[in-house]
């Protein structure tokens, strides 16, 4: 059942790629859309069959593969991966739909997008460490080519940078996975949280650190982020949508699934540092975004800031904040995809993304009024205006993290104000004001340019008004993620105490604890 999510796009890619002859752009586009649409619909079927109250993997598929290596084809889905799978299906459809009809080398293009989607779906589904790694690396190749072939002027630089960064990320993750399996004297790469518990804490911390850097590159976290703005600026719009909407989520997903899931004790130990790292990421991303002149770069830096919230919530590791990570991932996926789509339309129609060149695009006669209105929505959603998904996910992040890391949470909240600063600047410069002389004759915006953005906008508002529809799928899983570990349950216990009537001492205790970052015990102390 789950395999279809991987193999349907693959089949589509094969069809487009190996069709003997007579493959015109329209037909390959159609095949790609059908394959992606079928995969998307299939995810919805899985959602309808999914039992949210059941904790743990569902629809498991297990095929032994290379037994000597301990690698098995083992798929499964739970409340953490389900929303991301749906996001992947949806955004792939949108990316293909919003691709340029007259694109060059169309067969390769559509095939690569489908392979990319399949790789991401595989990574979200894999229940085997090595299998995850394979899919994680698989997704790298098509994305590299998509940037390197259909990118902007500096596409070679950006693509190579992306490739090197992600390869390093892959090596670190692989090393950590190998360490997990070999140091715990296992032969199988099956995902099993219990066995890392036997490792000494310092080893766990070391392995976790490798994962952190590996996934931190993907997320990305400051200072491992510089590939992202370049990749976004050079990539074409659909690729940007996929990159921001889905691929960055691989980093956070990996961090939650493998970092938090496999090393609860070490996670707890590093928690305060991670929260501080999140603050740095949020503020750095937001401040840098303010100074950007290129709209795409601004949105890219805003991504860095918003992914920082996920790390903050993950570091706090309360039931609420873990749930908030899922919500924030979905929210960022939808909102950043919308922003990139809209920036893409503006670029396509005006030929510029420069804040200094564009102005007055809200003009009802000769501007882009509907795109501008949707931009207002996207900007407000990103800045956390209530009624849209950005607000509730950020609120849950802050509310979930505050009891554990009050100072870091308050500092991260500054990020929402800074988001308002840079996106308002974008609105004011690009859409308000008088239509600039340089871009006075704009081509008409087709409805086909608008549909994908409208779909995303509707989803953003819908989940903002009714977050239950999202929360409902993930809550049991994320609660279970916290409940199964001794240290974290203790923390959960504290947390409940805080919410009770007289939680004052604990609140101030937590406050003091966060101010005085705990020292990591010296690794020497664990020597037997």
């Amino acid at each position, binding site marked *: 059942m789950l395999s279809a999510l991987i193999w349907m796009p693959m089949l589509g890619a094969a069809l487009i790629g190996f069709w003997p002859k007579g493959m015109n752009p329209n037909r390959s586009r159609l095949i790609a859309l059908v394959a992606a649409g079928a995969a998307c619909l299939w995810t919805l079927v899985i959602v309808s069959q999914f039992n949210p109250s059941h904790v743990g993997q569902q629809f498991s598929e297990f095929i032994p593969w290379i037994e000597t290596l301990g690698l098995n084809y083992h798929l499964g889905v739970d409340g953490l991966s389900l929303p991301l799978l749906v996001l992947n299906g949806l955004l792939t459809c949108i990316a293909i739909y919003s691709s340029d009809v007259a694109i060059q080398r169309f067969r390769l293009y559509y095939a690569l997008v489908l392979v990319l989607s399949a790789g991401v779906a595989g990574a979200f589904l894999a229940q085997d460490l090595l299998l995850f790694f394979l899919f994680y690396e698989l997704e790298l190749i098509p994305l590299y080519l998509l940037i390197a072939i259909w990118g902007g002027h500096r596409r070679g630089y950006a693509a190579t940078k992306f490739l*090197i960064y992600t390869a390093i990320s892959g090596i670190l993750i692989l090393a950590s996975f190998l360490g997990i399996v070999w140091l715990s004297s296992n032969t199988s790469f099956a995902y099993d949280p219990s066995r890392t518990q036997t490792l*000494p804490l*310092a080893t766990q911390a*070391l392995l976790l650190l490798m994962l952190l850097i590996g996934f931190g590159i993907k997320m990305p976290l*400051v*200072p491992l982020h*510089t590939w992202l703005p370049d990749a976004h600026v050079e990539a074409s719009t659909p690729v940007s949508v996929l990159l921001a909407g889905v691929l960055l989520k691989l980093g956070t997903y990996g961090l939650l699934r493998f970092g938090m899931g496999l090393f609860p004790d070490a996670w707890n130990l590093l928690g305060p540092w991670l929260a501080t790292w999140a603050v740095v990421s949020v503020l*750095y991303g937001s*401040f*840098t975004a*303010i100074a950007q002149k290129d709209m795409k770069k601004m949105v890219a830096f805003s991504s860095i800031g918003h992914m920082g919230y996920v790390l903050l919530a993950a570091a706090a590791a*309360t*039931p*609420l904040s873990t749930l908030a990570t899922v919500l924030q991932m979905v929210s960022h996926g939808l909102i950043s995809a919308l922003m990139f789509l809209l920036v893409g339309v503006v670029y396509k129609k005006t030929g510029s993304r420069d804040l200094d060149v564009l102005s*007055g695009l*809200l*003009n*009802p006669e000769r501007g882009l*009024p*509907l795109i501008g*209105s949707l931009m207002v929505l996207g900007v407000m959603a990103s*800045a956390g*205006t*209530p009624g849209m998904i950005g*607000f509730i996910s950020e*609120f*849950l992040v*802050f*509310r*979930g993290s*505050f*009891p554990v890391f009050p100072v870091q*949470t*308050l500092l991260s*909240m*500054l990020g929402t*104000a*800074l988001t*308002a600063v840079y996106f*308002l*600047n974008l609105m*004011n410069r690009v*859409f*308000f*004001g008088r239509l600039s002389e340089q871009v006075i004759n704009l081509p008409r915006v087709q409805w086909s340019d608008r549909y994908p953005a409208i779909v995303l906008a509707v989803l953003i508002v819908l989940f903002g008004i009714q977050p*239950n529809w999202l929360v409902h799928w993930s*809550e049991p899983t994320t609660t279970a993620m916290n409940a199964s570990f001794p240290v974290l349950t203790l923390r959960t216990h504290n*947390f*409940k105490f805080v*919410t009770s*009537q*007289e*939680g*004052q001492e604990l*609140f*101030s205790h937590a406050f003091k604890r966060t101010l005085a970052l705990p020292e990591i015990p010296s*690794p*020497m102390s*664990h*020597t037997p």
Partner: protein
Amino acid sequence: MNLFLFLNSWWVPFYGLIGAIVTLPWAMGTIRRTGPRPAAYFNLLMTVLAFVHSLVVLKDIWNQEPQSFLVTWLKTADLDLSFALDVSPVTVGAAVLITGLSLLAQIYTLGYMEKDWALARFFALMGFFEAALSGLALSDSLFLSYALLEMLTLSTYLLVGFWYAQPLVVTAARDAFLTKRVGDLLLLMGVVALATMAGSLNFSDLNEWAQTANLSPVNATLLGLALIAGPAGKCAQFPLHLWLDEAMEGPNPASVMRNSMVVAGGAFVLFKLQPILSLSPVALNALVVIGTVTAVGASLVSIAQIDIKRALSHSTSAYMGLVFIAVGLQQGGVALVLLFTHAIAKALLFMSAGSVIATTNTQDLTEMGGLWSRMPATTTAYIVGATGMVTLLPLGSFWAKLQWVENFITAPPWLVGVLLLVNGLTSLNLTRVFRLVFWGHSQPKTRRAPEVGWQMALPMVSLTVVTLLVPLLLQQWQLLPSWEAINRLAVVLLVASSATGLAIGSMIHLQRAWSRPIKLSWRVVQDLLSYDFYIDRLYGVTIVSAVALMSRLNAWIDRYVVDGLVNLVGLATIFGGESLKYSSSGQSQTYVLTILLGVCLLGLLVSWPLGFLIGWQF
């Protein structure tokens, strides 16, 4: 039927929202064939429905106990976000007032913005505005109120930025959003902290919690200050008052709503937060200080304005300052009465100002004059509104301020002085504006000035009547003191201060081509006041430039340090490869040496950290 309406009283805000949503296709220019009128009429219909609905509910529950509804929105992990809705005479009365004023403002819009091509967009925003405001009135949950305040921030941004092609409008909209956002952010911090500490965010639960909570003084103070910041931004209080003045660049019907109801919305939330604020004496004192500074400062600033709307809007800040003082002294009832009377009188003043602007096509006071004979309804509205604002005649504000004085006469007496000063200065300012606009000789722009059409005149005259009836309403609600209980001294003081203001206002020399006083010292004072104590420049050199500097610094570091390092590594690799290629000389001994060195280096690199690992762990 009545029961049905009562049970569905939570529906009141949704009328405006539906109006706004249905209007969207017209607002965004998707439907052009019909013109914007159908959208406008649909919104009017929705507002009428909201008004009638809330009026019926108000009549029903007039003598009943307040009812509370609980709507479960999101319940997850250990978080319970249930919205309590409070249906009591006060809240439904507020909803009636909001929908009623919104109805009048929307009819007014039909005239004021008759020829505006974006009429539909304006009506959509007004519907949104009305929805958020009436939701705020009914909300009994801090979370919901916060959310609605943010929606108000958004709709203020869009309404102020309505004529977005003008540069002043663009900066005004940005400033409105950002200053309010600063307040909202601090409020959100308070909300998050409260949610953690108190567990629930419904006001009734919070009040219970506040009675037993033993917060440390520092925490209580921080919490209180954070909670004040949100309403301070909304009510345009110092130091977040900058936006209201600039927001006058927006269309006038929105200013009517903003100066009467939106600021009151912020104050209403503050009123509801009063029990939590009382946990911290510092927070209460801060309220009094903020209120005093704003009340006096804004009253002074309003006198130096030559823009008719700005002259009135600064006095809104001043009156909200009085409300802040009242809440700071824990006199919530006084605050509410003052909010009510101010809202009606100020709305009327703004309608009158709007009529003047629509007829003369200018907002500059120095270009006006002699309108009294040409625009009688507008002049009447102005006079009634002005008397409703000050304490010369026993209209609304007189009674509100009387209560204020009577309740605070035991408090530090200087507070009464503040009130009298603000009252006197407001009276002076209103007299000054009256003389410049309606009195004196007509000028080129006011020579051919017919009275406005019925779409504007009808709501204006209706509101004039309502303003005159406010004392009767107050009597109906038994908010007026009995004849014997009236404090004579207070009455004398109040009337005297208004009369003084009136007298000075009518005496001072108002030169027509009144740009600059001759004396340098006066000129400095005038500039100081007319530029609002240069507060925007102060922001410019402090917080704005700090953020700008920080962002530029960050971008520089990002580009040249972080990314520079990355590129340096890349460059070094290429350089290494390029230079090593010259080592392929054909001499096998060099190759062997290179291989040996490479293997040694690699071995060292691998075994060194591995040795550490093994040494530590195994």
